[in-house]
């Protein structure tokens, strides 16, 4: 009776170990340019959108998650940032386009730390910059008529003091 109990315990232990090893299984992320990137489950934990998807679908050990809006270049940049524990220096080295794209992906995948980091970096970039710089940076089309813009600039004239060079 006691022996059988031990045997049963051993079986349960093995099962638990199997469950655990399952949890360390990797997730395959497929980028917009058709590259499959294998990442640890722990990496995906920060990507709340994927995490929610995984929680919703009772997955087996092979998870493939398509990212049609993310290029492999941007995904590898994100991995660099994550493994570098979101070092500010790494962020500074990103191009404007990379920064914007990473910010969008962070928003899409609901990665809070990365979103805060990139949104702050962009905010730093555009503060005290000219209106033209901001428009260009965000690809915003100026939908004011010339008269409207002149009027608005006049009203906020003093606000343009101390604008940095683009």
């Amino acid at each position: 009776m006691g022996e059988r109990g031990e045997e049963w315990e051993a079986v349960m232990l093995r099962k638990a170990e199997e469950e655990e090893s399952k949890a360390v299984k990797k997730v395959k992320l497929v980028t917009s340019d058709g590259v499959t990137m294998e990442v640890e489950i722990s990496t995906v934990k920060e990507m709340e959108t994927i995490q929610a998807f995984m929680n919703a679908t009772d997955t087996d050990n092979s998870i493939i998650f398509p990212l049609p809006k993310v290029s492999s270049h941007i995904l590898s940049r994100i991995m660099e940032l994550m493994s570098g524990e979101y070092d500010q220096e790494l962020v500074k080295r990103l191009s404007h386009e990379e920064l914007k794209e990473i910010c969008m992906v962070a928003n899409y995948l609901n990665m809070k730390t990365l979103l805060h980091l990139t949104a702050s970096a962009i905010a730093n970039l555009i503060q005290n910059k000219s209106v033209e710089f901001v428009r260009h940076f965000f690809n915003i089309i100026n939908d004011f008529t010339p008269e409207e813009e002149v009027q608005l600039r006049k009203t906020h004239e003093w606000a343009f003091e101390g604008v940095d060079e683009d």
Partner: protein
Amino acid sequence: MTRKRRRMMVEAAAAVTVTAVLPEDLMIEILARVRVSNPLQLRCVCKRWKSLVVDPQFVKKHLQKSFSDITDLVSKAMEDMNAFQLQLNYAPALAEQQEDEEEGEEGEEEEEEEEEEDPHSLVNELAQLDNMLVVVRSLKGSLETIKVDVQAIKERVKCLQSFLQIYLKTRVSSSSSFSSSPSSSSPSSSSSSSSSNSHTM
């Protein structure tokens, strides 16, 4: 071949998303983090941003940030003021102490060698003046720091004031356009009165 083509198409699609405009919720996330002391110039970017900057949600965030910024600036100014006060308290004590020492030394010297009294006191006086100069210089430096602190507070408050003025104006004009009552003439009258005010100034 077809694979290559498809890949090229996918790449083209990716390129399109690169130049795509950021979604609005993301814009708000970014705008809320802009540490610009006056966000008014951002109103000139486009119509959406014009209303976004005076959106109550954004204004609330901006006010909170402004208040905490101003509080920080004020506490820094207070710190510098306290440091200056300490310096000021210490400075005359230093001067007096030196005088006392000098007198004491002079006294001793007088007893020992009376002839050498004059050049010695001159050297001492010079040393004292040097010390005073150092003290005055550091006091001046501290005062300059406080001046910079106060200037920063002044600018920050001025920015906040102008922002609030514009915000209130947009509130008034939007509420008057809703009611379309005779009170709609009030913003124009208030603006004319403010312009006449500026004339008298």
